C-alpha cells in the first residue's frame, strides 16, 4: 500500500502549446529579432538580420530588459503582433 505523500511538485498537467505553422518560405515575411542583452548577442543578430534581408525578409529589432529574466508580457505581445517570424539570440 503506497503511503500518502505530499508532493513537492506542482503536479497540474498543462496542455501542450502547439507550434505555430511554419511558412513554406521566408521571402516576404516580417521578422522580429529579439536581443536578450546577452554579451555580443547584438553582433549575432546583426549577421542574422543581414542574411534575412538578403532573403527578402523585412526586419525589426526589440530588446529585453535583461537576459536573466523572462521577457515582459507586453514585449511578447509586441513580437506576436508585429512579426511572422521571430529570432532570439543567445550569446556569450
Amino acid at each position: 500500500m503506497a503511503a500518502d505523500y505530499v508532493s513537492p511538485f506542482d503536479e497540474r498537467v498543462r496542455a501542450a502549446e502547439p507550434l505555430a505553422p511554419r511558412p513554406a518560405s521566408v521571402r516576404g515575411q516580417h521578422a522580429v529579432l529579439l536581443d536578450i542583452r546577452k554579451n555580443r548577442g547584438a553582433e549575432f543578430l546583426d549577421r542574422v538580420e543581414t542574411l534575412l534581408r538578403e532573403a527578402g525578409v523585412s526586419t525589426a529589432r526589440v530588446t529585453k530588459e535583461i537576459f536573466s529574466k523572462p521577457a515582459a508580457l507586453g514585449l511578447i505581445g509586441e513580437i506576436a503582433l508585429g512579426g511572422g517570424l521571430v529570432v532570439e539570440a543567445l550569446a556569450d
Partner: protein
Amino acid sequence: MEPARKADSTGGRGGRLVPELTVRGTGPAAVTIAGLTAGGGALLVFVSEHCPTSALALRRLGPLCQDWAQAGLTAVAIFEDPLEVAIRTARRLGWSGQVAADDPPYPASRAYRVAAVPTAVLVGGDGVLAGTVTGWDQPGLAALLGEAGQLLGAGLAVPPATEPLRKPGCSAKAAIDPELAAAMSGPGGGDEPEEMFERGWTDGLPVIPPTAERVEAMLGGRDGAEPLGLVPPAMGEATLERVAACAVLAGCRPAYFPVVAAAARAVLDPAFNLHGQAVTTQPAGQLVVVNGPVREAIGLNSGMGALGPGFRANLTIGRAVRLLVSLTGGAMPGAMDRATLGQMGKLGFCVAEDEEGSPWEPLHVERGFEAGQSVVTVIGSDAPLSISDHRSRTPEDLAYVLAWAAASAWSTNWWPLAEPSVFVICPEHAQMFRAAGWSKQRLRQAMFDEVRRPARLLRRGETSLTVQAADPDELVPKWASPEAIVLLVAGGEAGRYSAVLGPCTGMGSQIVSREVT
C-alpha cells in the same frame, strides 16, 4: 485478469480481447478499456521513465495524440513508475495524450505480456487486440496507425520518418522477477528512501518522505493552501503545503518552518530574480542569512564551524529552500539548472550571524528592521573562499588582506562588481576592528578604497566594458560602490579565518529580507 469485454462482444471480428486495465490515471474516473475505446479505438503505450527509448517514443508520438483524439483514437502512456513521475515525465517530453501508472507488481504490463518498453498496443473499439509494436519502430508504428485509421475510417498522423527509425527498447520492470521488481520500485516495496529517489524527490541525498502527517506537523496549523507565488523556472506554484513538503524532505523540524517560509517568500520576491539564478551557468546558490531571536530559539549555529556541517537547523533550512527551487521550481542540475560546475552551497547554505559577538549592528538592522525582530535575508552567492590572516597588527592591514582576497571574485579582471560580495568576518578579526573603534561603514569604505587598479593592468582576458572604456591609468575599483560589500560576523572564537562569498553577477538580483512570522 478479466477480459475487457465478454466473449460475445467482439463485433464478429473474432480477434483476441485485450485484458482489462488496472492502472491509476490522473483523474477520479477509473481507466478502462471501454472508456479508452469509446471514440473508436485506443493506443496503449507502455513506457518507463528510466528508458531512453521510451523517452524517444513519447517525444515523437506525443505531439500527434491530439490529432488522433479528434479522429477517435485515444492514446494513453502507461508508465511502470509512480504516477507523479509519470505525469512529470510526460509533461517534460511533450506527451499530449493521457497518462496512467502501473504500480508494482505491474499487473497491466504483465497482463499484456510486455517484455520491453516501449510497447504500443492498438485496441479496436470492440476491445479486440489490433496490433502490437515493441521498441521504437517508426515503420511498424506507421503501419499500426494505418491499421487504426482503417478501423476508424480516418487518416491518422504518423511520426516523421527521421532517424533513428528503429531503436531497441528496455527490459520492462514487469519482466523482472516480481519480488525483485517490487523491492526496486517504491510503493509497496517498503523502502521509502529508495522510493524518494525513484520519484525524483531529492537533491541527490536521502530525504525524509513527506507523508501527510509529517507535512501537517510541519505546517503547525497554518493554511497549507496559502499561495506564496510561482517558483521559476518551471513556475510550479509554491503553496505553503508544498514548502512544508520541501522542509520535511530536507529534514527540518517543525520549529524551523517559520524561517523556511520566510526564506521562501524572500527568494520568490521578483527583486531577487530567482529565475536567473536558478537556470544560470554560474555556480551561484541562494545564501540564507538569519538574524534575530529565532537563531537561539531553533538552535542555529553562528559560532564554531558556522559555514560548515554539524548543525541540523543550518543545514536543513538551507536545503529546504534549495529543494523548493529544484523540485517545485524544476531547477534540477543538468535539466533546467544549467550550472557548468555548481558548488556545494547549492545543496543549501544557511548562515546565522553572531550578533552577540559582533562589534557592529547586525545585517537585519542595517536593512531597516528592529534588533528584536527575526529576519531572513537571501543573497545570490558563490561558494566561500577562506581568508587566513594571523599576522596583521592594524585594522588597515587586515582590511587590506580581506579586501584583496576578493579581488578575483567572479573573474580576475572583471571590475567593478555591482552585485554584493559577502564577507563573513570571524570573531578574532572582528575584535581587531572593535578594539580600533572601526564602524562597519568605516571598514566597508576602507575595503572599497583599497582594491582598485589602473585599467591597463586589467586589460587581459575577460574584462568588463568599464575597464575597456577607461583611460589606461584610470583607477578602477573592484566594487561599484561600498554598498556592494556585505559584512557579517560569524565563526568560532579561536582562529583568524574569515571568508568571502563572491556574487551572482549580471542577473540584476537584489538582496531581499523578510521577517520571520
